[in-house]
């Protein structure tokens, strides 16, 4: 390793995590940006739809044309207050917007309207659970502030080899995204997590995302950029003053949050152990390598020349307004999880599987429709999840409703469908063949319960396999399976296998 590399804060070889964490205590801070899912932008009536043609969702305001002026979207303020309430924050009774001045071509006004020292929400917390060898541990992550600002336009880099900014000949700007409401949620420094820092960071962002989604204020898709996370991190010897922090950007998945923290602890420990020093800088995380590279040095602090935004008047939420919003708050994810585990009598792992499948709301709705909880879970996480995964669609996008499951379960209970036939009903529903009744009728799906017809099928199967018949008669009852299988085949699965077995044994005069 060269000296020059060390002063750059770069090392060629990283310590492994155990070694890195053994000598240092990390302090983490997370800044999360969430694009709100309002219909219109923060200051103007332009649509926020994702994926529209370039520069088609723009107006004088979000293009920053001379003379244009912003007007605050009420829904964005309400969403922010609701986020603040969910994060146990104090809601400011009076606050202002501020201009953050810096030049960048993706920012039409060359200042961002944000909030500076008067955030709308402040001093909150979010409890998160991490797994430790000693069992689950709850960590309280304190929230410094939740404030409102606006998103920038989208840059595409052209010319040059990589499509990256570095080496590009020029860039192209689409301002559709400019002015979309953006909420920044900043934690206080999180200390004392020790070696669990990466897991705590991930658990925090995961839980924050759950909260945002539960509130319905954003789809919070990290891969589409509607939720973005910056990781601040420093390390220091136990008991020593906090170290210099770096800020890692471009952390675009929950998994990457954990990896970025782990990697940065390893990097900083490696630099320090080699006698180097950590410089205050912005770093960029790379998904492919799991490592970050140095970006802009922040040694010369940016001078954003904040001042109160004169084009907007202060926001002063009344107590009544805040209470009205509090009344709209859904059950928080952690509370809900605890309740569902108890109600459905499942463990955390099983609940997590349901959550991962995106099935919790569907199961709840199915139970609400009158289906028993085990059956509801069985269908959504079994057959339906399999089809969803095979076809690459979301569970909720399948054309199967909780009410369909209720109808199918009723048919099973009445003995006119079995599980195998039920799967065919779902296949029909997904293929758009109509309602449950229509699929059953069109496909001729019904359990054959006519004893005469079943006996005829049994006789036919016995005649086709006289050796098996003999075996059964001689007491080898396990051989009955072959005959039952043959009957099921000829009835195309529309028979009740248990009933076939009973009839078969009666026919042969054998008892179990």
């Amino acid at each position: 390793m060269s000296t020059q590399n060390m002063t750059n804060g770069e090392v060629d070889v990283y310590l492994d995590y155990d070694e890195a964490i053994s000598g240092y205590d990390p302090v983490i801070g997370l800044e999360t940006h969430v694009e709100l899912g309002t219909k219109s932008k923060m200051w103007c009536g332009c649509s926020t739809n994702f994926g529209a043609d370039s520069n088609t969702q723009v107006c004088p305001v979000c293009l920053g044309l001379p003379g244009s002026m912003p007007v605050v979207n009420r829904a964005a303020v309400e969403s922010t207050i609701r986020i603040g309430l969910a994060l146990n924050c104090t809601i400011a009774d009076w606050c202002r917007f501020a201009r953050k001045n810096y030049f960048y071509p993706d920012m039409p006004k060359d200042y961002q309207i944000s909030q500076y020292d008067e955030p709308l929400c402040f001093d909150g917390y979010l409890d998160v659970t991490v797994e430790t060898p000693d069992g689950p541990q709850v960590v309280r992550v304190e929230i410094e502030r939740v404030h409102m600002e606006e998103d920038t336009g989208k840059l595409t880099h052209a010319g040059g080899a990589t499509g990256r900014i570095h080496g590009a000949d020029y860039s192209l700007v689409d301002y559709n995204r400019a002015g979309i409401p953006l909420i920044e949620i900043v934690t206080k420094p999180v200390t004392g997590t020790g070696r669990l820092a990466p897991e705590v960071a991930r658990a925090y962002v995961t839980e924050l995302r759950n909260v945002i989604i539960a509130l319905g204020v954003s789809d919070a898709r990290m891969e589409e950029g509607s939720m973005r996370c910056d990781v601040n991190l420093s390390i220091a010897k136990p008991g020593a003053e906090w170290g210099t922090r770096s800020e890692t950007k471009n952390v675009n998945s929950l998994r990457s949050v954990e990896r970025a923290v782990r990697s940065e602890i390893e990097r900083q420990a490696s630099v320090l152990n080699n006698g180097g020093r950590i410089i205050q800088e912005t770093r960029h995380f790379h998904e492919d390598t799991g490592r970050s590279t140095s970006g802009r040095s922040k040694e010369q602090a940016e001078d954003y020349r904040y001042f109160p935004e004169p084009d907007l008047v202060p926001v002063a939420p009344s107590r009544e307004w805040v209470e009205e919003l509090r009344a709209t708050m859904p059950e928080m994810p952690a509370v809900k999880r605890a309740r569902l585990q108890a109600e459905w009598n499942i463990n955390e792992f099983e609940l997590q599987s349901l959550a991962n499948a995106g099935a919790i709301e569907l199961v709840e709705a199915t139970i609400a429709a009158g289906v028993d909880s085990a059956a509801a879970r069985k269908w959504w996480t079994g057959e339906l999840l399999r089809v969803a995964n095979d076809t690459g669609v979301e569970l909720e996008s399948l054309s199967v409703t909780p009410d369909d499951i209720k109808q199918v379960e009723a048919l099973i209970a009445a003995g006119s469908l079995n599980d195998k036939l039920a799967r065919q009903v779902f296949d029909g529903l997904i293929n758009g063949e109509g309602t449950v009744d229509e699929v059953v009728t069109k496909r001729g799906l019904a359990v054959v319960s006519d004893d005469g017809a079943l006996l005829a099928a049994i006789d036919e199967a016995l005649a086709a396999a006289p050796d098996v018949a003999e075996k059964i008669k001689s007491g080898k009852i396990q051989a009955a399976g072959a005959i039952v299988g043959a009957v099921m085949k000829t009835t195309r699965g529309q028979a009740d296998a248990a009933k076939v077995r009973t009839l078969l044994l009666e026919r042969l005069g054998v008892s179990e």
Partner: protein
Amino acid sequence: MNDLTRQSAAVLADAIASKEVTAVEVAQAHLDRIAAVDGKVHAFLHVTTDSALEQARAVDAKVAAGTPLGALAGVPLGLKDVLAMKGEPTTAGSRILEGWRPPYDSTVVARLRAADIVILGKTNMDEFAMGSSTEHSAYGPTHNPWDLDRIPGGSGGGSAAALAAFEAPLAIGTDTGGSIRQPASVTGTVGVKPTYGGVSRYGQIALASSLDQPGPCARSVLDTALLHAAIAGHDPRDSTSINAAVPDVVAAAKKADVRGMRIGVVTELMGEGYQSGVSQRYSESLDILRELGAEIVEVSCPHFEYALGAYYLILPSEASSNLARFDGMRYGLRAGDDGKNSVEQVMAITREAGFGPEVKRRIMLGTYALSSGYYDAYYGQAQKVRTLITRDFNAAFEKADVLVSPTAPTTAFKLGEKLDDPLAMYLNDVATIPVNLAGIGAMSLPIGLAPEDGLPVGMQIMAPAMADDRLYLAGGALEAALIDKWGHLLIEEAPSL
């Protein structure tokens, strides 16, 4: 009807509505006048001949169809080039916006159109409204019709000169520290800076957002009131727009009565530093107001001496931010884009090439005042001074219904005289700036010619926030008394060019 360009807006509107003349004839008469004299005056940067005549024809069609019309339908107007007008050049007097045609109308323009007021063109101004002489226009200065070697005031010198040169009976100005009132004062015309939030700023290219205010300009108090009523009122596109009924300024201008009114003379805004002829006419006007039945009282506003300092911190600070968007990326000038220069370099080269010296000076000053380490000492302190000045006004309005002062310390000075001395230039606004800092409304109206130079002198009338009607009540009364004295409006004495 004799020379259409010498009529008042009110008279023209009546003549058009009664089919005595057509709106096209009126518009054409003013376009002809512009063609004849604007080479000397340079009040206009751009004459919108086609759209003006089109608008005039539409008015005539409405007259013919018997459609009800606004009080100023068909009357021509000069629009300060700082207000966006869809499809027409809008430069704010700057090279950096040369050739830019906004894809939208400012609210003021939308209301002018709705009132069937015919927009003749865009009037000259100091670049981005920074100046008191219109000499800082990137397109050359405007000349004062009273003496072509003198400044017409600024930043709205073009609008004021257009009125004084009888190129238009109405004009729109914007006032950040006196840019409506000081040009009115030195050209013998009337101008009103409404209460902040009284007229929408949407579409006004911002100089200092917390000080800017568009307003009406005309040659008489009544015409000014009629225009005020046409453009004022709540606008949901401007968050700082006042959501309340506009005071009935037209009724006030017609009532024109100061009997029983307490008029406060601001002792800090007179005496030393004011030209003798200015002080003389001011003093005579106070006598007239007293004779008209007003009670003249003295009021003191001790913090006004700090107004200029606070203003020259707040304005550059906000301007440095408002003018950041002129970076050559989306509209306007781009310089230095040779394929090698970075975006940062191209922005810097563009701004260096596109902005004039006064704009750069104020951007630098504002950048400094906002920068970390200086914010509290400069911008923060200036905002406290704003509070003190507002308190001074509140105390003064306890004793008086309106306040008065000379509008400007001097009559029109010579072109070039103060161009290289920014501080001397800034002192022109010493009497007008406190009004903007407090956000209240004020009028300037002509009160005679200074004996020593024969140039117009203006009086400023100030009223509490949202009481703009008092300006017209007092201004109208004083104007009527002066007409009685002179037999005509002062502007009738302007050279014919």
